[in-house]
Structures are given as structure tokens and as C-alpha cells.
């Protein structure tokens, strides 16, 4: 029998319900094999960090979850809904899965507040007042309510990324995907974004983060996953992952990113 799992449990011992199931996922770009039979179960409330060299398929993997990229083989199930079977299912998945991009991708012609209220109004059908109240709540959460009426171009990179996080949270997603959220930031702004992500993790959000911020991985991840050449090479709780990486490829990679 399974016992209630501690936070840093291995997936086999995790009693929480499965939020995302990826089974035998295959992805090709033309003849390039980007994902090779990837299996990954993400449990509710689990915080996962994916790392790996560029071109290893880590971004592709999370972009398949909300079908920004379409997988060609295997199956992806998000909260009971199959990805890629019907367009209705796709709508449902995208409404439940928030995404934060490396390059923020805020809408430059809309104010911060409008960026945050658009999807709740158009997808959730909320009244403008309701959507604004929710938006302000999350802008306070990411500690920039005073910027609500500015345009994205008037904000720093770190502020923009926090707005992007707030914008995703306004949809009350069940899962948050982060695609290298700090890679485009100046060093002094990385911390403010990571702090936001850490507080989100502490509130029990299910998160999958593609990042090379290993300090963040150590601090909040339940599991760290290392990908290379379209495969999951190794995974484990951060303590064992960083202390005793099993695979040579993982050791090489960690040596490269941790030595300085």
C-alpha cells in the first residue's frame, strides 16, 4: 500500500492524483526526432524542473502539453482530457494550463490590466469588473499592482515577466508551465521572478519549469528531470539528483552549468 508521500517523494510513491500523463510521446520536426517515447506523470501539486542542453527537447515537451506543438505519437492526458483528440478538449486543456514564456510575450498594445483581463473575459466569460478584480488580486500577488495601467513597454524585463505570470494565473489554471522564464532577464531581475515562482510553488500550484536555475530546483522541486537528445535521461528528487547523478551525461551537464 502507498503511504502519504513526503514532498520529495519519487513518483512511484506519490499518492496524489495524476494531473498530466504523458505516455510514449513522440514528436518529429520533419525527419528530426525531437521527443523519443517520453513517459512522464505529473501529480497534482507537484513541482517539476526540467533541465538539459539546448535542443534536448525540454521546451518541446512542455509545449506539447498545451499543444503549441502537436505530438505525433503516444498520448498526453491533462486532468482527464486527451490532448489532440478534439478541438473542444484542446480548448479545455488550454484554459486549465497557464504558460510563461522566455520572452514574456505580453501584448504590447494593451495595458498590464488589459493583458490580464482579456482571457478571463473572452474565455471564461467573466464581466469586466470581475475580471479586473481578479487581475488586481494577482498583480498584487506578483507585487506590481501600481503598474496596472502602464503598457508592457514601460516596464522592466523582470516586471514584464511577473505580469506574464499574473496574466496566466488570472485564468485560475490547474497547471503552470514555465519555459525558461528567467533566461531573457538581466541578472538583477532573475531573483524577483524566481521569488514569485517560489511563492507560487509554496501555495501548492502544479508546476513544470524548464530552467537552468539549479538553486530554484534545489529549493522547490519535487523532482528534477534531465533531458538529452529527446529523451528523459534521468530523474529524481533534487537531493539525490545533484549529489549522485547516475548517468554520465547528467554528470557532464551538471559539471558544465554548476562549476562557475
Amino acid at each position, binding site marked *: 500500500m502507498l503511504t502519504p508521500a513526503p514532498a520529495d517523494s519519487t513518483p512511484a510513491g506519490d499518492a496524489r492524483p495524476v494531473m498530466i500523463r504523458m505516455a510514449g510521446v513522440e514528436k518529429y520536426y520533419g525527419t528530426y526526432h525531437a521527443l523519443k517515447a517520453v513517459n512522464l506523470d505529473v501529480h497534482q501539486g507537484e513541482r517539476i524542473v526540467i533541465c538539459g542542453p539546448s535542443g534536448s527537447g525540454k521546451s518541446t515537451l512542455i509545449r506539447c502539453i498545451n499543444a503549441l506543438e502537436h505530438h505525433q505519437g503516444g498520448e498526453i492526458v491533462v486532468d482527464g482530457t486527451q490532448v489532440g483528440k478534439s478541438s473542444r478538449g484542446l480548448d479545455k486543456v488550454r484554459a486549465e494550463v497557464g504558460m510563461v*514564456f522566455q520572452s514574456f510575450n505580453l501584448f504590447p498594445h494593451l495595458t498590464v490590466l488589459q493583458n490580464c483581463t482579456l482571457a478571463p473575459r473572452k474565455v471564461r466569460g467573466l464581466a469586466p469588473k470581475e475580471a479586473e478584480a481578479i487581475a488586481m488580486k494577482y498583480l498584487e500577488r506578483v507585487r506590481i499592482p501600481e503598474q496596472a495601467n502602464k503598457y508592457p513597454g514601460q516596464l522592466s524585463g523582470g516586471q514584464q515577466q511577473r505580469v506574464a505570470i499574473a496574466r496566466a494565473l488570472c485564468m485560475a489554471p490547474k497547471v503552470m508551465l514555465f519555459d525558461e522564464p528567467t533566461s531573457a532577464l538581466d541578472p538583477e531581475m532573475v531573483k524577483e521572478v524566481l521569488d514569485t515562482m517560489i511563492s507560487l510553488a509554496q501555495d501548492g500550484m502544479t508546476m513544470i519549469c524548464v530552467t537552468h536555475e539549479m538553486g530554484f530546483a534545489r529549493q522547490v522541486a519535487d523532482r528534477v528531470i534531465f533531458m538529452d537528445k529527446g529523451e528523459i535521461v534521468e530523474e529524481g528528487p533534487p537531493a539525490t539528483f545533484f549529489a549522485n547523478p547516475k548517468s554520465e551525461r547528467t554528470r557532464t551537464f551538471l559539471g558544465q552549468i554548476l562549476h562557475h
Partner: protein
Amino acid sequence: MIRQFTSAEFFFLLSAVRWTLLLSAIAFAGGAALGLLVALARTAPWQWLRATAGAYILVFQGTPLLMQLFLVFFGATMVGASVDPLAAAAIGLTLNAAAFLGEIWRGCIQAIPKGQWEASTALGLHYVTRMREIILPQAAKIAVAPTVGFLVMLVKSTSLASIIGFVELTRAGQIVNNATFRPFLVFGIVAAIYFALCWPLSLYARHLEKRFGTVSR
């Protein structure tokens, strides 16, 4: 009997300007409405729609506007519908303008960074909302300058309507010249009037380019 070129002739030319302007306005409005559909079709997620719009553009960009006007004018007569020259010219110019505007606007739509499409898709926004709220407002900014530039072309293209007998500025010039035999004077004045119409538009286009060109980067 050769008439003198008097102020009466001059005012006859000037009064024909309104037909040039009317034809330009109709063709621009029609061309913009149809052109938007063409641009959306060219950037649609469905291959067959992109191909259809592509074929439309190919035909109308690859054949002379004059032939298109002939085909509309005589084609309508052939199937038994009599169209007056204004309607024929308006239809022909609209179809032609739609092809060019559609292609200009396709470029503007595709100039919007991929991240904008991805972010709106990831938020669950549907195609219509995505285009209306995110993509088109940003594309419109880029489109203003080249669109006004195209409008200059369109005003000058209306002169071809003279050949199917629509009395706009150029046709008025031909009529005056037939009576006065002062071709250099008459067509010089006609050209000057076109210039007076188009030059402010060109200046405006350049102004818009400066204004929006810097903002969008």
C-alpha cells in the same frame, strides 16, 4: 470647329475630379473590405483557404488592370447584364485593390512576432478573438503607411476607367482635348491635378511611416 481652352474647359476638368475621387473611394472601401478577407484567408490555418486566396492574388496581380476592367465591363454585357461604366470600373478596381491590399496586409499580419500568437493561443483565446484583439490591432499599426501608399496608386489607377467610357478626370481631359486640340496643355493640367491629389497622400504616408515605424520596433 476648334474651341479655345478657356476657364470653362478648366472648370469642366476640375468638376470631373469628384468622379475620380468617388471611384477611388468606392474602390478603396470595397478593396479594403475584400482585402481584409483575402489577408485573413492567406494567413488562415487551413491550406485550401490559403491556396484559394493565393490563386486570387496571383490572377489579379499577374494581369493588367485594364484587362480586368475590360473583362468586367464586357463580361457583364455578355451575360446579358448591362453595367454602367462606373459600376464596372468600381467592381474591377475593387477586385484589383483587394488583391494588392490583401497581400500588403498578409505581410503585416505575418510580421507580428510568433510569441504573440503563442501567448494568445496558450491563454485559450479562439481564432476570432485572437485576430480581433491581439493580431490585427498590432498589424494595423504597421499597415497604415503602406496602405496610404497604395491609395496613391489606386487614385492614379482610376484613370484607366476612362477607357471603358467612365467620365472621370482623364476622360474629361480627352473630351476637352478633342475639342481644343491643345494636348500638352490639357494633359499637363490633368497631370497637375492628379499630382495635387496624390502628393498630400504621399506626404501623409511618409509621416505615418515615421510615426508608427519607430513605435512598432
